[in-house]
């Protein structure tokens, strides 16, 4: 049990903090910001599964976020569906579109995949922006209802929305945890490591990649739908490429391909952005270079750096095997040194 606690200490700490936070601070504004951060985290977890664990950088996920949001908005506002049915349908619709896109996109690799998904994301944005009669175009969609009450529990207050979205976030984390630490997760990681190798140990890469892609669009859609009912208003901007860049920043800072990454990165960037209010539109002056520097020196972000640190300490404790750094810069420098020595 002690080891269990130690290993998952951060997780339990986070849950406890998130649960008691509303009692510590009566500030509605903070509650609002935090709820929003939870929504981003869900989407970032989806992206992490695909980009972090499977190695496919999708730049279409802002688009899928927007599809989830608009699906929920349209189903409740225009079709008058019950909120919960609409929420489920929104996730299903997003995943279905994700399936179709993935079917084609995943035939491409690396640069082509990134460019392809970037274009898909842009198409989604343009369609939302221009399809006035359905989406309301640039004017957006207003009057999206809050989640309807389940029995005695209603979701009208910011506090209840906070807990509702926290619930979805925790469910997301649990699912991610179980996927990552299972044979299915190992399969994804094997694909990221080397698709050729994965295939020769009998893994159907296309089937698995499609599974990840659909899953990750599911979470993007879920986040989008929750966003729509939390903010109650949506515009085409939520599908624009700047949103995917935000997701990427959260993920990279926190740690690509780590379980804690989405929480750490999103929380850190959102809170730093809050305290740097005066920067507003200029926050990318800091976050842009941060993204670049991190990917060069700490490709696995804060969580990854921490894991490396812990691993190294353990290695040193066990015996004095020097553990190697993970930065590719250092690796290539070592290569170069080797080459110089040999040559």
């Amino acid at each position, binding site marked *: 049990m002690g080891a269990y606690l130690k290993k998952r200490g951060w997780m339990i700490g986070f849950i406890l903090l998130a649960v008691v936070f509303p009692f510590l601070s009566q500030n509605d504004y903070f509650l609002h910001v935090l709820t929003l951060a939870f929504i981003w985290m869900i989407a970032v977890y989806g992206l992490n599964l695909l980009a972090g664990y499977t190695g496919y950088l999708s730049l279409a996920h802002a688009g899928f976020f927007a599809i989830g949001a608009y699906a929920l908005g349209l189903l409740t506002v225009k079709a008058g569906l019950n909120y919960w049915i609409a929420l489920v349908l929104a996730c299903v619709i997003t995943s279905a579109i994700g399936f179709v896109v993935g079917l084609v996109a995943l035939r491409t690799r690396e640069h082509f995949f990134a460019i392809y998904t*970037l274009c898909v994301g842009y198409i989604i944005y343009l369609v939302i922006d221009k399809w006035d009669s359905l989406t309301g175009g640039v004017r957006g969609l207003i009057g999206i209802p809050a989640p309807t009450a389940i029995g005695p529990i209603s979701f009208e207050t910011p506090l209840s929305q906070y807990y509702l979205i926290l619930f979805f976030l925790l469910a997301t984390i649990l699912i991610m945890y179980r996927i990552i630490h299972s044979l299915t997760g190992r399969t994804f990681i094997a694909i990221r490591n080397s698709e050729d190798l994965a295939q020769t140990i009998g893994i159907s890469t296309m089937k698995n990649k499609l599974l990840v892609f659909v899953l990750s669009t599911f979470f993007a859609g879920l986040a989008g739908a929750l966003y729509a009912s939390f903010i109650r208003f949506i515009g085409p901007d939520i599908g624009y490429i700047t949103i995917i860049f935000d997701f990427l920043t959260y993920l990279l800072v926190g740690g690509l391909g780590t379980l804690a990454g989405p929480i750490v990165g999103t929380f850190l960037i959102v809170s730093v952005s809050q305290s740097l209010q005066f920067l507003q539109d200029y926050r990318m002056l800091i976050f842009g270079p941060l993204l670049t520097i991190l990917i060069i020196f700490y490709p696995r972000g804060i969580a990854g750096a921490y894991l490396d640190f812990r691993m190294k300490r353990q290695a040193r404790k066990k015996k004095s095997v020097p553990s190697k750094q993970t930065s590719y810069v250092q690796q290539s420098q070592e290569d170069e040194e080797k080459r110089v020595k040999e040559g």
Partner: protein
Amino acid sequence: MDILTQQLFNGLTIGSVYSLVALGLTLVYGILHIPNFAHGALYMLGAYITLTLMLLWGIHYWIAMAVSVLVVGLLGVLMDRLVFHPLRNAPPIHDKIAAIGMLLFLEAFAQLIWGADYRTMTTPYGQVINLFGTTATMQRVLINIGAIAVMILLYLFLKKTYIGATIIAMAQNREGAHLVGINTNKVAMLTFMISGGLAAIAASLSAPINLVFPGMGHLVILKAFVIIILGGMGSIPGAILGGYILGFTESLGATYISNDYKDLIAFLLLVIILSIRPKGLFSREGF
């Protein structure tokens, strides 16, 4: 006035700009296999630098453009040294993210310095002239002439000079080039210099007929990616041809299909191409 001729001329003009941007992108891709997502930011900076030089110090359009080419080219070199070079052995996902980081930074930087407003650039070439029965501003004619002149110069440089030959050699076989003693680092820097310069020329030429704002590079760079996939990643003739094809398609599509959805044409085209041929139209890379 004949609408078709007018639209064809428009297509030619747009195509010229696209070709120049795509050329820079394809050169870098051909040599280093980096899809430089930050290329659109270089394009945007090219326009701002020219504009600022003209407004602030009243420097003549052409001289301002020359300075802009130099500055943006050096910025490209800086990008290579500081970011892409250290990442050359990293997994493929990393250089894309690094490029996106730079894109975000440069855009925020532009917004900080110049503000988020849309600006116009006025050049001495606003007069309307008559050309084969259609009317056009002198600036539009200059875009076409300028672009074609730059392409010819680039061609001569690559084919007739020793340095140009090393660039082509390296595009065809990086390891081989290294073995025969070509300084691949220098060639990479030179390529980034040219690439940035081309973006600055394209932006400075086209800014007077468009608007200048921090996000002006988004659509252009996305379309440039479409073009180089259309024309074959790394292919120079492909980038030029692809640029003009997209220019014509858009300008005709805007007139005869829908102006609202004209930007969609490029992306649909790309989605269709990659759906059928996942490695691009011409998967063989090189010149």
